[in-house]
């Protein structure tokens, strides 16, 4: 089967940009990625655009602005994993021999405040059962009850990621914080305080994927997998109103990671750097367990060991994670991949993971959808 290479990446910083449209941001990211790949009009045969709140034909609007239409342009929505879904479709098309070169991008301007999701029925909103942070809080509490995670651990995740993000010029928050400040911020949904939750925001990211035998050099896309949930887990991102009284239902993240490890012929012990879903501080710890970075229940010990901090054995979220960058749904997964491509190229300056050759990114969100990407150099 044909290999897939990342020939170029581009980013519009993540943050809040009044007066800058979803299209404007997409144009910035796409231009940068095409520029790195050294290609232009007519040089890619399809485009996939991740977006959840962008509206009709978001991808078309970006490529129309650049004068590059005519090929199939497909918008892809898979919640927080939208960009991962776009990447999976693009990579699969290249592997199947359908296209040589495909543009993948994501662009998003999220509403301010608690995310209003069309996923919920009106009665759920009316009953107070559409409060996204409440589901995060319940999941965090279960992690505390089952994995020995404390509020201090949750605060430490934020401190770690904000320290990483302090040297990321594309992050929304580029200032370090402290355990005291995190625990001093208001409680949103116990045990989660405000600083433990990522900010929905705005941004764009883009990649050019190319058949490996046509690329001069680059980072290899070893796996790009998307899975949905198996029903049964009441606190799954599928956000059901009920589940089974059973704890062994595999998480969508675990399903996607298992498939990705198999496709890449690699395992968790081969990884050098990880970007994972840290929509809230507990989600990063849960993600570490579900991705197999530690034993089930071992995420607090993994954090305590310093392994996941820059300079440690397996840095997690060297970009600062969503806790520093914020989360523009359609762009966040591809933003992780852009970071990891730069890490594998050794371009990340103070936040560089030295010698990184194998990288994994992970997003999971409503649907449920979980995306796992493995990159190698």
């Amino acid at each position, binding site marked *: 089967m044909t290999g897939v290479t990342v020939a170029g990446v581009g980013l519009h910083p993540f943050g809040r940009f009044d007066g800058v449209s979803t299209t404007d941001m997409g144009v910035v990211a796409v231009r940068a990625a095409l520029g790195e790949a050294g290609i232009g009009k007519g040089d890619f045969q399809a485009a996939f655009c991740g977006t959840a709140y962008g509206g009709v034909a978001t991808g078309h609007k970006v490529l129309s602005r650049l004068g590059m239409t005519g090929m199939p342009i497909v918008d892809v929505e898979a919640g927080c994993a939208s960009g991962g879904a776009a990447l999976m479709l693009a990579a699969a098309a290249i592997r199947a021999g359908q296209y040589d070169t495909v543009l993948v991008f994501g662009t998003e301007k999220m509403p301010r405040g608690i995310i209003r999701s069309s996923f*919920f029925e009106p009665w759920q*909103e009316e009953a*107070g059962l559409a409060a*996204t*942070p409440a589901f995060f809080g*319940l999941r965090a*509490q279960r992690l505390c009850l089952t994995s020995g995670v404390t509020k201090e651990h949750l605060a430490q995740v934020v401190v770690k990621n904000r320290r990483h993000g302090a040297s990321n010029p594309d992050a929304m928050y580029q200032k370090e914080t402290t355990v005291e400040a995190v625990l001093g911020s208001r409680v949103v949904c116990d045990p989660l305080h405000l600083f433990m939750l990522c900010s929905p925001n705005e941004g764009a990211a883009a990649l050019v994927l190319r058949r490996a035998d046509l690329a001069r050099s680059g980072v290899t896309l070893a796996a790009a997998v998307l899975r949905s949930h198996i029903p049964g887990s*009441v606190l799954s991102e599928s956000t059901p109103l009920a589940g089974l009284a059973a704890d062994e239902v595999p998480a969508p993240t675990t399903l996607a990671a298992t498939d990705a490890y198999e496709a890449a012929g690699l395992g968790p012990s081969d990884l050098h750097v990880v970007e994972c879903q840290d929509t809230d501080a507990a989600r990063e710890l849960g993600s570490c367990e579900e991705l197999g970075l530690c034993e089930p229940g071992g995420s607090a010990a993994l954090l305590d060991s310093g392994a996941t901090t820059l300079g440690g054995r397996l840095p997690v979220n060297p970009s600062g994670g969503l806790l520093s960058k914020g989360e523009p749904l359609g762009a966040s997964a591809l933003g992780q991949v852009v970071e990891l491509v730069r890490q594998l190229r050794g371009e990340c300056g103070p936040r560089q993971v030295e010698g990184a050759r194998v990288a994994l990114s992970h997003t999971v969100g409503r649907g449920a959808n979980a995306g796992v990407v493995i990159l190698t150099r």
Partner: protein
Amino acid sequence: MVRDGLFNDGDPPALLGTRCAACGSVHFPRADACTYCATEDPEPIELSRRGTLWAWTAVTAPPPGYKGEVPFGVGVVELPEGVRVITRLTESDPAALVEGQAMELRIVPLHRDEEGNDVVTYAFAPA
């Protein structure tokens, strides 16, 4: 009632679920097909009124579309049918609750609609 078909508000009240004839799984709300094995037409049942607390938190700021009071409790209650249900809780102080404590179904007011009627929903209270 915030939505028909979720619960009956009689005395005593009950959540309305279904049970799959093929695999025995219990669903809430009522399902057209078993979410676990896809068998059609699961049997309508009333769920147990009492269960145990499995997870809990409180919502401190009004989420989108919500017109009632804050803070309010949200949690997961495990019922004897082998099902865990996401529910409002009558207790909004997380420190006042413990894992595994007995909980009982209640019907509680959410807010008053334009015609002056109380809109009610299901919740669990410490038993």
